[in-house]
């Protein structure tokens, strides 16, 4: 299992020869690129999973959990700000699961943005079977009720996002990606750095006179 530093140094070594100074890019820069490539690959993998197999269940490695996110009042309802922007997926699946911090099985119902107003007009449905729904706007979750005004107020929530939050990792923590994704990550980083594999030259006798 690789670490962020390990995979970044691999990229740095591979890229070093392509820079005139021979130094290559800074390790910090490569670490950032690595995180970006991992998220991009996660999204590609997830979308191809949905498109080809109809399988919506992500690998546990793709899920980053953020606990104790504070709920704030917002107009006549409430909102919570996610620490990381979720990746863009159908039906807002970038935010995988949201629940109160102290009642993890009592999930909030995700709504497509703008759906709350449509649902409000429909009897029975607008009750969400006594659950609470939310809409995703940017990195903010807007709830359909004020969680702070409930009989048992919900002051903090837990959110699971489909994102590899490398910033939360130490340099030597195991990188949360499957082993078969390591090579595409390196390739992706090198591509972003503008490093290209040497092309095969055709041995043409005419070139040698």
């Amino acid at each position, binding site marked *: 299992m690789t670490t962020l530093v390990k995979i970044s140094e691999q990229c740095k070594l591979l890229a070093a020869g392509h820079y005139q100074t021979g130094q290559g890019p800074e390790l910090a820069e490569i670490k950032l690129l690595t995180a970006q490539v991992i998220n991009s690959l996660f999204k590609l993998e997830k979308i191809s999973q949905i498109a080809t197999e*109809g*399988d*919506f*269940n992500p690998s546990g490695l793709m899920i980053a959990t953020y606990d104790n996110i504070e709920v704030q009042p917002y107009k006549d309802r409430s909102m919570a700000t996610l620490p990381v922007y979720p990746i863009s997926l159908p*039906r*807002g*699946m970038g935010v*995988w*699961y949201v629940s109160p911090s102290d009642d993890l099985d009592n*999930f909030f*119902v*995700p*709504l497509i943005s703008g*759906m709350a107003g449509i*649902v409000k007009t*429909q*009897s*029975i*449905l607008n*009750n*969400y*079977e*006594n*659950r609470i*729904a939310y809409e995703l706007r940017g990195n903010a979750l807007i709830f359909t009720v004020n969680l702070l005004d409930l009989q048992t107020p919900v002051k903090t929530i837990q959110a699971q996002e489909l994102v590899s939050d490398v910033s939360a990792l130490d340099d030597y923590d195991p990188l949360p990606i499957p082993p078969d994704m390591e090579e595409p990550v390196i390739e992706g980083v090198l591509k972003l750095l503008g490093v290209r594999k040497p092309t095969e030259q055709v041995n043409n006798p005419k070139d040698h006179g």
Partner: protein
Amino acid sequence: MVLQKLDSIVCSSLTAQGLPVHFYLPFLSYGIDCFRALEMDIMRNAPTVKLPVNSYGAVDLPCRVEDVIAVGVPVGGYVKNMPRRDTLNPLKNVDSTGAIVPYPDVCQIPYRSMFGWPYYSNGYLSITNERGEVTGGIYGYGGGSFKFSYQVFKDRNQIQLDDINVDHVMLKYMTSDPSSCGCDTMVDPRAALTVKNYIIWQYFLNNKKLMRAAPEFERHYISEALRLRGRMNPLSKEDVVMSLREYTQASIKS
């Protein structure tokens, strides 16, 4: 009575299809559609309420009424249902001051009203049993009462009674909106599998990639709905035996 939450059926359908909570809302919407259809056709949830009759013999319908099943008057521990008719004047009768007043009584045919019960019995003939049902034997007379009847006027959101000599009526009505109070929607456990099959069928039907398989899931739903109809049949062996015995009488052997 054991009931199952619609929420648990929706979650069960999500589990069966391996889908995340992001499909909860469409699945809940399908479940509610099915629940309403079943309430109309098979489950027939029919509450009864006692409603006051106003000065001109009309009764305001409660807002949850989708169809009127029966209108009757309370008689002790029984309810005497009225026949429905379709010739009452839908327009309200107003007097010179603009107040709504009942129409004048034009049904003065005595032999007709004699058969009505309990308000039109003439007191001389015992033609009804203790539940007000005509027992027969008055040959040549028409049975039943034309006067003791009602008509539903949906445009007025009222039931108009032909006879206004009652203070209250018992209304048995059909509704498919039992949880308008904001409670959980409760489903009869016998119908749970039918609702679940409907949800899955609709999921396939509304998914462009999966809609080819929808007819198969439609068949599953229909077969489950037929099974539910069988489960809901209340007829028991005792009902059949009692029905036979009720109309069996001793008679002179020839």
